[in-house]
């Protein structure tokens, strides 16, 4: 009589079938985990745009061009011009990058090529520590040390574009330094050795061979630093003065998209709140442009 009990072959087949299902389920779960970032972006974009886009469309270009921001004006239905705020964001960012890039790239070159081992072992964790300091602590330092210093030396409010530049450049230094250092390190050794072999000095090699070869990564780091600067909120909120005006000097106060949102979000209702979300969309657009540029820059490779 033929047994209907499973023999060893069938048993192992069944085991592997359940194992298969389990493996597939696990793979699916992991896929879902991976998709979470995509879902996150979707959620963020959906909610922010849902709240802000109608307003942006309705307000039209005057939102971006007008300089009058009086959201709670009881007489008009609110006046929504964020041009000074956009200008503030840009000025503050450009200045921080202008100061931070030379220092950051120089420090990166130093770390990658010049610094002896012990110095590097101190400097690298220090750069990481700089990156780890919370933005509110930077703002704290700015408010208590830098703002009074500016007020004493240069007059005015103290809370100013200049104060924002000083704090922001420090905050973007680690970004520029670490990515640039990696880029310089990634340059193939043959480039450096070839240059030295031809009699060039260390500095000549750095200047004419290494930095150009790493330029795409360096540029990417600067653009990322720019993204960090334009997106910074707390430190700017505490040191820039929050004045919705186009600054007439670097010692004048200004406002940025981020700080204005943080300042008014607590109490904004109705159209005012939608306007703030519209500002968020504008900010988001800037960031996307910068991220796209950074990607483009890092893909370019200088070939010899």
């Amino acid at each position: 009589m033929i047994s209907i009990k499973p023999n060893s072959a069938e048993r192992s087949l069944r085991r592997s079938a359940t194992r298969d299902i389990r493996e597939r389920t696990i793979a699916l779960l992991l896929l879902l985990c991976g998709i979470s970032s995509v879902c996150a972006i979707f959620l963020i974009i959906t909610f922010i745009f849902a709240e802000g886009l109608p307003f942006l469309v309705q307000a039209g270009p005057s939102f971006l061009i007008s300089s009058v921001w009086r959201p709670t004006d009881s007489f008009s239905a609110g006046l929504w011009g964020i041009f000074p705020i956009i200008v503030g964001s840009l000025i503050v960012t450009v200045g921080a990058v202008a100061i931070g890039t030379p220092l950051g790239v120089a420090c990166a070159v130093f770390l990658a090529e010049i610094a002896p081992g012990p110095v590097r072992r101190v400097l690298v964790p220090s750069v990481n520590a700089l990156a780890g300091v919370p933005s509110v602590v930077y703002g704290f330092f700015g408010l208590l040390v830098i703002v009074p210093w500016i007020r004493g030396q240069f007059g005015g409010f103290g809370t100013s574009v200049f104060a924002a530049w000083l704090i922001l450049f420090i905050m973007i230094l680690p970004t520029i330094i670490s990515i640039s250092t990696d880029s310089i390190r990634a340059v193939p050794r043959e480039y450096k050795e070839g240059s030295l072999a031809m009699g060039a000095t260390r500095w000549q090699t750095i200047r004419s061979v290494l930095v150009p070869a790493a330029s795409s990564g360096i540029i990417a780091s600067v653009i990322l630093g720019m993204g960090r600067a334009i997106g910074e909120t707390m430190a700017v909120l505490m040191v820039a003065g929050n004045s919705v005006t186009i600054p007439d000097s670097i010692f004048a106060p200004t406002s940025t998209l981020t700080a204005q949102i943080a300042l008014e979000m607590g109490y904004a209702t109705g159209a005012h709140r939608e306007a703030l979300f519209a500002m968020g969309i504008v900010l988001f657009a800037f960031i996307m442009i910068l991220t796209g540029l950074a990607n483009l820059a890092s893909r370019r490779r200088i070939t010899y």
Partner: protein
Amino acid sequence: MEAKRRELVPLALLWGAGIATLVILIVILAYILANGLPVISWHFLTGEPALWGQTGGGIYSTIVATLAVTAVSLLVAAPLSVGGAIYLNEYTKETPLRKIIRQAAEILAGIPSIIIGLFGFLFFVIYLAPLTGGWSMISGGLTLAFMVLPISLRTSEEALKTVPAELREGSLGIGATKWQSITTVVLPTALPGIITGLILGVGRAVGETAAILLTAGGSLNLIQSLRDPGRPMTLNIYDVLTEYRDTTTAYGTAAVLIIAILAITLITDVLMNNYTKKLKGL
């Protein structure tokens, strides 16, 4: 000789850049710690906050709030990021999906914290209010998870990449399934790197303010549950400074934060050094 002498100026400048960076860090840290360390005491760390305008209170409730939002964010971000990293590294080839996920993580990492806070306010505080309790530790923590996720995703993926292929192939060769190989061989090898990434994410969560400002509430009361509003340390610095210029508490809180961040930086550095050494030994 001529070239060597011309070298001196640029080399000096480069040294200067390195030293300047170091000096900047030291100045900021020294300032905060010099003013803040004397404030720290057992009472400061465990006492209740003072009433408005009065000094001498403690920051216990803010420490608990920081731990609460960090824990919530980790609880959500850790499995998602590690799972996602495993998927990206172990399960797919260079398909468009992989590129999309990577790109999404990069974009997410670049989104300013205030925008994530705006989203968190809409989604967690308002939309999901019955679930999260409105302004609460849960809302704050879930919002923070959006910021921790891309960091730990990236570092976990890097960690998994450094596991030598031979280990995987060896494990599969003796009949283990893919998942078994991952859990018994790949993950343990990559674990220090993954944990480093999670700790970095913790550092980000602990130091975040703007998103917390919009989602966690701001109450100084000690939280009784995760659905209560609270005030993490970073928010406390901003609040005490702007609302009643209680610089003493602000310095003390900042000092505690700095020490925590420095500890995190040190631990991750040591871990990474040990890890890369071990991997080289493989």
